[in-house]
């Protein structure tokens, strides 16, 4: 997979197929991006599991925190890692010990570890790096268009009025894969410099 620019169908396929998502680094602080991504994905019908050893015994929006991936005790479809790039590898290594393996490992906006991605992909796990699943869901459903964001999708179909707790269709026509060409180039230049 080219991790500088993902085809929309790759992201769409992931968000349309996964049901359970373990979020590593989920924060109970309501101003942290992990908190509101967790809340949004839960409202859109995903089975969310907060993973954070610092908060075991508490819960996040009614879901009990677990200390580590191996404590979840049931199969999970996707692991969403809300940690800095330097903390990705141990999480991926732990994910690779799970049975069954997760289908997807997703690293948040700003997080990228190509070696960890290669490790996961070598055993058939799909990897997404430096993206936010909330933003991608909002983009492919065009819900993010309320913010003036270029969803890079079109549709001539009448969509149902969105309400809380309902899943939205992500199956709109894409007008180009991944990010815009210019922002892709910028991200690639930045990755090469660092």
């Amino acid at each position, binding site marked *: 997979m080219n991790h500088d620019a993902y085809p929309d169908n790759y992201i769409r396929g992931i968000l349309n197929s996964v049901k359970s998502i373990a979020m590593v680094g989920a924060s109970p602080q309501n*101003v942290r991006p992990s908190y509101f991504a967790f809340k949004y994905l839960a409202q859109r019908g995903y089975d969310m599991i907060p993973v954070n050893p610092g908060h075991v015994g508490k819960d996040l929006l009614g879901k009990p925190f677990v200390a580590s991936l191996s404590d979840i005790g049931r199969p999970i479809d996707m692991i969403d890692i809300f940690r800095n790039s330097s903390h990705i590898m141990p999480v991926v290594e732990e994910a690779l010990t799970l049975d069954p393996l997760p289908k997807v490992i997703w690293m948040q*906006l700003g997080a990228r570890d190509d070696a960890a991605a290669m490790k996961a992909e070598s055993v058939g796990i799909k990897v997404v790096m430096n993206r936010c699943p909330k933003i991608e869901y909002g983009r492919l459903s065009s819900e*993010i268009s309320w913010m*003036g*964001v*270029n969803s890079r999708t*079109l549709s001539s179909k009448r969509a149902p009025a969105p309400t809380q707790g309902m899943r939205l269709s992500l199956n709109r026509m894409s007008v180009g894969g991944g990010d815009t060409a*210019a922002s892709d180039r910028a991200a690639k230049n930045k990755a090469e410099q660092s």
Partner: protein
Amino acid sequence: MSDRLPGFSTLAVHAGAQPDPTTGARATPIYQTTSFVFNDADHAASLFGLQAFGNIYTRIGNPTNAVLEERVAALEGGTAALAVASGHAAQVVVLQQLLQPGDEFIAARKLYGGSINQFTHAFKSFGWNVVWADPDDIASFERAVTPRTKAIFIESIANPAGSITDIEAISTVARKAGVPLIVDNTLASPYLIRPIDHGADIVVHSLTKFLGGHGNSLGGIIVDAGTFDWSTGGKYPMLSEPRPEYHGIRLQETFGNFAFAIACRVLGLRDLGPALSPFNAFMILTGIETLPLRMQKHCDNAKAVAEFLAGHPAVASVSYAGLASDKYNQLARKYAPKGAGAVFTFSLKGGYDAGVNLVSKLQLFSHLANVGDTRSLVIHPASTTHSQLDDAAKVKSGAGPDVVRLSIGIEDKEDLIADLEQALSA
């Protein structure tokens, strides 16, 4: 659902718009409302905290305006956009995110006269210091860079003479200086030039001109290219530092490659207040649907008129980059191969008096201070749009006393030429 890129005309009609979920209305409805009902207290708190997508109050966002924003972002190849009340408002909101008092920005000397005024006088009172550079001398931009430089500002096609700016060369200077390049793309529109493809980080427009295109609605827009990294060195604290007005959110961390557009909305538009009326957004959206058709006709007419004027005995010179003899023709071929725009100047052998006489004799051209209308327009910049500049600055910005500016409309070109012919011989 294949990842296929639709063409420019398809995006001009469809991007951002879809049938209204509630009524099925196919044209974008005018959501003429100040405010939007929350589902419950938690939903309200999520919206105010920038945690959920949705509408609060039309000064921050409006569904009609959002369609316009997405459409222009798509046409320019940006990640997001923010519509505001005018092109001038767009410039204030952009620079508010980038400059602290005492900071500098470099601007091309060839600009719309109103921008020269805004930068020289209004922004000075904010402590934002403009440093002028010559777009025909790229090294003058390099020499202007100091540790306080926060941005570079140019026009893609420059008012009033329609000169073409070497965007790529100036974007190289900006990249080296570690500052974003802002391009005012008003006179080109994305149909002729997409500055982001040439290295722009931010694009601004007066929507009032070719995008709206009918001379009936004011508006401005800011497009975020998603290309600039705001996190380095604490140089852009509005984007990289925790924002106290939003419980410590860091915009770049939270919104990634559309953080600048969000900053313009939630720190600029929200607090400065230049919101666009949804009615104007609707009018401008309707205009954009025909942008490719109109823009081509504008350019084809302009070239015919410029060629006519260049061959007329009363005309001293014509500045139109679409003419093979023009000094900007090479740049026009590179940046605007479909046409060199429709705003240009010419000077008359009879000087100032002949210019005034011409303006008074024209019957089809309207004498007014706007460009980018379906109608053809004429003005004498030295006594109007550029009148607040001193004589030397007038000449430097291409608005000397003998210069007449035209904005060519989409009428039949034969009629425009006949009108000029009778006025020049009268």
